[in-house]
């Protein structure tokens, strides 16, 4: 394969190979051929670069926050490597975030493949309500992280409800509470307090007629009628 594609058929064949390469769908021998060609062909390199941007879209929507302990482990490994490779300069200092992560790692519990902890046997009424939301036909899942906390929200418009779950959320500062807001067209509506347990976990069902999202802010103990601080977690339903 030369650096040019005089023949349209050959170009089409090359295009297929570049696509398969971007999808990692070639065996080793084919991959080596494509790599050799890419090294000499700017046109195919341009195609490859643009298709790699496209491939990013394939996994959009599959987000799944890793367990908090992984963050600690990754940052530790990177720090160790940085220290080893340059003993005198650029020695990495633990960041504030990493310190928070270390504290939480001690409490990190069993891996759950996805962001939502499954209900336990002997479920309460609240658990059953939560299961109803999770199993609703139109349920959609949103997840994000804040500092070391993992936040998952499942919203079902047909159930007029959402479920919010946090893991690894630090305790609210003394005299404060985390408060959940249901973001309705009329403005934020109080949806209860989020009180993480010793492991930083909490889960709550939110009744949310016509809500367009959910937010969490830090409020004076007991909560407020309206948010008095900006939400630090905000989920917009799409």
């Amino acid at each position: 394969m030369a650096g040019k594609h005089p023949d349209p058929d050959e170009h089409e064949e090359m295009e297929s190979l570049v696509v398969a390469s971007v999808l990692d769908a070639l065996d080793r021998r084919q991959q080596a051929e494509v790599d050799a060609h890419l090294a000499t062909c700017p046109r195919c390199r341009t195609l490859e670069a643009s298709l790699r941007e496209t491939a990013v879209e394939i996994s959009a929507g599959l987000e799944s926050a890793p367990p908090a302990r992984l963050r600690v482990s990754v940052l530790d490994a990177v720090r160790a490597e940085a220290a080893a490779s340059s003993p005198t300069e650029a020695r990495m200092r633990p960041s504030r975030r990493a310190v928070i992560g270390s504290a939480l790692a001690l409490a990190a519990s069993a891996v759950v493949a996805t962001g939502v902890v499954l209900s336990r046997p002997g479920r309460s009424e609240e658990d059953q309500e939560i299961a109803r939301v999770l199993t609703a036909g139109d349920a959609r899942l949103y997840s994000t992280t804040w500092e070391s906390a993992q936040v998952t929200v499942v919203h079902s418009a047909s159930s007029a409800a959402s479920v919010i779950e946090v893991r690894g959320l630090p305790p609210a500062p003394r005299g404060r509470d985390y408060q959940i807001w249901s973001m309705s067209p009329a403005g934020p509506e109080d949806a209860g307090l989020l009180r993480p347990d010793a492991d930083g976990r909490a889960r709550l069902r939110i009744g949310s007629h016509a809500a367009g999202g959910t937010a969490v802010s830090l409020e004076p103990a007991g909560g407020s009628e309206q948010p008095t601080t900006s939400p630090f977690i905000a989920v917009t339903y799409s």
Partner: protein
Amino acid sequence: MTPPPEDLASEDAKIPAPASPDALRDAILSVAAGDADSFAGLYDATSARVHGLVLRVLRDPAQAEEVTQEVYLEVFRRAAGFDPARGSALAWILTLAHRRAVDRVRSSQSQSDRDVAYESRANTQEPDPTGEAALATLEAQRVRTALEQLSERQAEAIRLAYLDGLTQTQVADRLGIPLGTAKTRLRDGLLALRRIVSAPRQRKEE
């Protein structure tokens, strides 16, 4: 514990938290210069994407965790080789992640072993029967959004190759179609996805 900042703009934490491409690029460039805080920020901004992709390909939480860690070490080691002129930071990271996940799939077990393991885990795990199935359904709904605008045949071929980690030959076998047909579906599918993605999009928020 540090309390949450009281006036952090809600935009910063919107879900799915989309770090701007420029911010990710700058973070990798800082990492290349040895800045630990930038690496933490880069991890926070991308780890759900990386882990989500790796988990989907491997279908095994323990392996997904290992591979995600390997990916970030590779990101760190290769940060100096990242060339912003050649593509986005997210594409660069997900390329490393996907390749490692696929390597792991192909080296460790056969595809069918993996599927069986996943099935048995999904079926025998104690708690609540609703949970795992409900989440699988949610996941399927979400991934459909990116691929749903392709023909079902193209989307299926891309899913098998990219998300299940099959080679094009395996895709053809799995679908019972000639290799040439599989290649065409993959090529036409990804090129169509590129057109869709690069077309002017409707605003999604508000």
